[in-house]
């Protein structure tokens, strides 16, 4: 916790480093133990206690007090007091700051030391500490006689080059030690724990050095470097996801820290320079800098991509970084996201997307979608398209996108003849649903008198509301869909993503559309100037405040749909069979996997695999909106797969070797305080967090032993769409999961600036769509590592689901016998 870490190796080295001064080490250990015991007895947050969040300040207090007071019983008592005080302050500050999304850092430590120092004047039993060097030698002499004393002197006074020594002492100073050796231990621990932290500490130190050289200030006061290093690490790697931007911020924090430090020094009079209170600044400057920057960043309205604050603290910059890489745009953008589904069934085409510069969705009405049904050739009608009923989407059911209450219904307007528009009644027949206060959805241009619901009626997601028509400003049948913050028909639009849908890019080389029989009426549907009558009639609320998404909670950037897709263009023609598989699916959802999807078409069909059905070329999209030209359809979840992977809390799975069914392990599904589900292996203590969404099972984190069976499941089912997709888009795995010391560390060093070691998880469905009634499903997954243009397969796994339950898992790795696991559900 001291270095924002949960790394045991680092902890061990730090412990060792603190014992560079045995008294201090013992005091620190004792204080930390007291704090943990106190936190447990006090019944404070157990998870924070276990993380060490409540005890590290006590540890620091324990480490610091021997610097000021000579060892003795009085000191022991003081340490106990200090530990308790630090705990109280930790809990209190934690409660106060957590509400603002801020950490309390080492503020309790600073306050505790100040209080104790100020109060210590009244305790004559406390003797001021001797000069540490002499004290050290006395101890050594007493323990080992002259040889040890000499050795100790050599060790402490060895001739270190100035720069590294200053760096190491700065690191040691974090633990309130003054020894390059202790610093060396800390540095080694940091490198072990996190390359990013280590690099950043170096950068910060060198930056400080340079700053000192520029200003001519005294930078060799060793413990002052510590503030710079800690401040830089906190803002550059821990509370922000490491990136070029965060590194820049870390550098920018240095002068800030310098100013705060100088001011604190002057104010408190640590150096006795002025009439201050005679208190040391300790880590106050770092806390000040880090909290200031963090708070300011939290208050950004449009966080942007340059500097992303860590959404879930994983206590390792690497873990934060790779987790962020692995899941761009894969999280609900809002904490209170309303799961939104497509308002129709089957395949539709989006003809106007958000702010696409579309012809009719403009200005405040820009975040709306238009849908039609189009065939493989891109036509929206059959025959000559002169009758409304020639249009595929005409009279098709329009569904409620989410649960809600019907707010308004307009259904008396006639459908226009093809090519004509009704500019007086801009929106035509419309249903507005209220989902939440301030969140409404509007469905427009419905068929006359087709609305089946009444105002005030509660509707469920997927319920049929009306039929698609061509009323209002609609030259041909289509469905207009938007979300808005106000209940009035035609309110300004609100961007809001769908939970999940299948999308296929528009054919790039689509055959030219048949000349439309319609009048090319320039349709300006929502521009207010074009439809003044309608808008004034309905009274547009002026104070409608957009909420959600853009103005969403801080630190939850929503990465939009800016995802270039391989045009699934020709994928409907057999020519695609010959598509080279070099069309490599790029990482992290950069490119769709559609071309490969067709190559990997059903093996069972003896015919050369061709793009059977359009369904083959679809890719799963989550938390985004369709773009113009995309063919989209709702996800058809396979009931058997969903049942097997739903894993409600309380489920217990018995896992055993298929060959040797003795001694099953029991995994249990539990939830934590944040309602995150995880699988917990009682025997090994391994934990695998997962999220189950409408259409996707997604493992999010694994903690536990490297060879655990749970990790095998985690890797084999890292991300599984719950619907049939022959070859879903490969996803990036977080690198630390694979524990590759050589390549991995190299990647960590360069992490924020580029990724050249990429572990990729890919899934494949052998065979054709099993259909919802299939008894057994088989999923193949692979983990591949790509680095420097090379590719290596790390493992291949096969997961089978039988009769709606997980059945077996087989993992193949090069050079290892295959591991076969069998699952069975245990009744509790």
């Amino acid at each position, binding site marked *: 916790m001291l270095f924002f870490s949960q790394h045991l190796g680092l902890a061990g080295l730090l412990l060792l480093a603190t014992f560079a001064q045995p008294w201090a080490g013992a005091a620190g250990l004792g204080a930390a133990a007291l704090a943990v015991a106190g936190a447990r007895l006090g019944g404070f947050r157990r998870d924070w206690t276990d993380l060490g969040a409540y005890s590290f300040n006590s540890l620091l207090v324990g480490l610091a007090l021997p610097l000021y007071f000579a060892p003795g019983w009085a000191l022991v008592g003081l340490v106990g007091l200090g530990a308790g005080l630090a705990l109280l302050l930790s809990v209190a500050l934690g409660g106060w700051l957590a509400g603002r999304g801020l950490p309390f850092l080492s503020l309790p430590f600073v306050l505790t030391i100040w209080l104790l120092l100020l109060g210590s004047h009244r305790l004559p039993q406390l003797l001021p500490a001797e000069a540490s060097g002499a004290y050290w030698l006395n101890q050594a002499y007493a323990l080992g006689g002259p040889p040890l004393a000499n050795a100790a002197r050599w060790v402490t006074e060895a001739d270190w080059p100035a720069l590294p020594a200053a760096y190491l002492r700065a690191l040691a100073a974090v633990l309130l030690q003054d020894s390059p050796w202790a610093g060396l231990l800390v540095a080694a621990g940091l490198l072990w724990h996190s390359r990013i932290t280590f690099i950043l500490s170096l950068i910060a130190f060198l930056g400080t050095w340079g700053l000192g050289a520029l200003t001519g200030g005294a930078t060799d006061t060793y413990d002052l470097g510590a503030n710079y290093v800690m401040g830089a690490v906190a803002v550059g790697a821990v509370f922000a996801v490491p990136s070029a931007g965060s590194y820049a911020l870390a550098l920018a924090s240095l002068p800030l820290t310098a100013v705060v430090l100088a001011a604190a020094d002057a104010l408190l009079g640590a150096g006795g320079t002025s009439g201050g209170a005679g208190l040391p600044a300790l880590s106050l400057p770092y806390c000040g800098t880090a909290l200031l920057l963090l708070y300011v960043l939290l208050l950004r309205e449009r966080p942007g991509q340059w500097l992303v604050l860590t959404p879930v603290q994983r206590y390792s910059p690497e873990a934060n970084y790779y987790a962020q890489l692995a899941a761009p745009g894969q999280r609900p953008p809002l904490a209170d996201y309303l799961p939104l589904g497509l308002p129709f069934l089957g395949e539709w085409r989006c003809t106007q997307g958000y702010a696409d510069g579309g012809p009719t969705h403009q200005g405040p009405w820009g975040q709306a979608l238009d849908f039609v049904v189009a065939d493989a050739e891109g036509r929206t009608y059959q025959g000559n398209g002169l009758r409304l009923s020639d249009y595929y989407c005409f009279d098709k059911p329009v569904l409620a996108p989410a649960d809600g209450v019907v707010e308004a219904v307009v259904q008396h307007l006639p459908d226009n003849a093809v090519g004509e528009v009704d500019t007086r009644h801009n929106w035509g027949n419309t249903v507005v649903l209220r989902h939440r206060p301030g969140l409404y959805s509007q469905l427009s241009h419905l068929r006359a008198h087709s609305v089946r619901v009444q105002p005030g009626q509660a509707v469920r997601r997927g319920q049929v509301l009306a039929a698609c028509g061509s009323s209002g400003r609609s030259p041909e049948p289509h469905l207009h869909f938007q979300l808005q913050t106000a209940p009035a028909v035609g309110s300004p639009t609100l961007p809001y993503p769908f939970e999940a849908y299948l999308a296929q890019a528009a054919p790039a080389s689509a055959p030219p559309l048949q000349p439309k029989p319609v009048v090319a009426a320039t349709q300006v549907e929502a521009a207010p100037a074009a439809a003044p009558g309608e808008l004034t009639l309905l009274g547009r609320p002026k104070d409608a405040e957009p909420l959600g998404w853009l103005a969403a909670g801080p630190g939850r950037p929503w990465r939009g749909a800016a995802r270039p897709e391989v045009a699934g263009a020709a994928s409907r023609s057999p020519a695609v069979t010959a598509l080279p598989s070099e069309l490599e699916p790029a990482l992290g959802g950069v490119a769709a996997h559609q071309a490969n999807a067709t190559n990997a078409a059903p093996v069972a069909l003896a015919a050369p695999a061709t793009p059977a059905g359009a369904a083959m070329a679809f890719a799963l999209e989550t938390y985004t909106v369709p773009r113009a030209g995309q063919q989209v359809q709702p996800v058809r979840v396979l009931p058997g797969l969903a049942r097997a992977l739903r894993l409600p809390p309380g489920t217990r799975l018995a896992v055993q070797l298929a060959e040797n069914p003795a001694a099953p392990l029991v995994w249990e599904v539990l939830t934590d305080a944040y309602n995150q589900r995880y699988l917990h292996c009682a025997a090994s203590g391994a934990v695998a967090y997962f999220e189950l969404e409408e259409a996707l099972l997604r493992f999010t984190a694994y903690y536990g032993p490297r060879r655990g069976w749970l990790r095998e499941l985690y890797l084999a089912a890292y991300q599984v769409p719950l619907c049939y997709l022959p070859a879903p888009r490969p996803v990036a795995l977080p690198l630390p999961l694979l524990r590759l010391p050589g390549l991995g560390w190299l990647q960590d060093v360069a992490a924020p600036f580029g990724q050249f070691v990429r572990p990729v998880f890919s899934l494949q469905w052998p065979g054709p769509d099993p259909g919802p009634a299939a*008894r057994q499903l088989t999923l193949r997954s692979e983990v591949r590592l790509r680095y420097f243009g090379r590719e290596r397969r790390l493992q291949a796994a096969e997961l089978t689901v039988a009769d709606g339950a997980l059945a077996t898992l087989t993992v193949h790795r090069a050079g290892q016998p295959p591991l076969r696991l069998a699952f069975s559900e245990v009744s509790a």
Partner: protein
Amino acid sequence: MKLPYERPTLRRLTAGTLSKFGPQAGAGVRPVAEVAGASVPALLAQFGSPLFVLSERQLRRSAQALRRSFGTRYPRVQLAWSYKTNYLNAVCRVFHQEGAWAEVVSGFELEKALGNGVPGHHILFNGPSKTAADLARAAEVDAVVHLDSFDELRALLAVAAGRPRPVRVAVRVNLDAGLPQRWDRFGFNLENGQAWQAVQQVAAAPDLALVGLHCHLGTFVLEPAAYGTAAAKLAALAQRATHELHQTIDYLDLGGGFPSLNTLKGSYLPGPDLVPDLDEYAAAVAEALLGAGFAPEALPLLVLEAGRALVDEAGYLLGTVLATKQLPDGRRATVLDFGVNLLFTAYWYDHLISPVRADAGRPEPTVLYGPLCMNIDVVRETALLPPLGPGDQLVVHRVGAYNMSQWQQFITLRPNVILLDLQGNSHIIREAETLEYVQQPERVPEHLL
């Protein structure tokens, strides 16, 4: 003067009398020189006459149109290609590529589907005549057996005993959907309680797993509402099974019977004017199923066994006039090189037949005879066609369904069948028969050699 009594008579309407603008405006006189983008004379020159032509583009379009019609109205729809309608492997594979399962009605078709790479669990085994061997094979490959009778249930129980996994079964139901002609010879009747009895017996059998309910209303059903009624009745049966027997029904199979645009014999209006759009069937079925009271996540899969509606439009028969003559009643008659031997559906439909040559003259009612030396070989009793001479070519439209499975090797041999792919290339998918082929299974006893 008293007029002599004349008995009232009913006379069949002949084509051409519908339009007040006279025969010139009648259907069928438009010359058609190209089918699916290919020139008719060129195809006939290359592959010989007569010739069956199938358009892959149209096959795919039809399958996609069906998916569109039903898929935009109901969340889970599955097509099972009705093999008997046209089981040329190339045709079946086009549909399988479009995602269709297979609906077979005999052991022969079952093997054909397996040979086309359809996984066993995507084969629905219908039909009233399943032998013990057929049932065993179906059980082995995990096909779904659509039970037709209690005797078949007993036979299946014997076959299923001792297998590692229960055999998957659907119960075929016949019901009153309000159609004048009720198909009650297949499956178990719903109204008299047999269907429920069968469901109970299957549910009680540990060796069988009830996965679906099936019904098939008839053929060329022109009444979309009947499908709605059938869907509602099947859904009610499925829910009864769920509530009373705790038996989830995975799918409801509404069979086929959807019409193509052909004109039924005796129909007052031509097919395109009469036949409802597939969308209307979809609307009726979806309405019934969505309103049946299933929980949204428990909606059963809707299986459709469309055949004719998908393949008829994609098939053409090209042929040549052999001779013409004047009948005693003055009508023109034309002898063609194809007849009911190839065009079995000539018994059912007044096929739309177009001349290839554009400037053939003024159309008049013509009788079209086939080449067989049989009185029944009439392709059209009367069709409006311009005067044709020997060597003139004709195109018969909408012949994709049933002809290439019900044709006869009678008197003469069967011709080439070609498929025009999406690029317009032609592929022979069934070669013209030869004397050796026909005689290959024949054996002549020694004493006759």
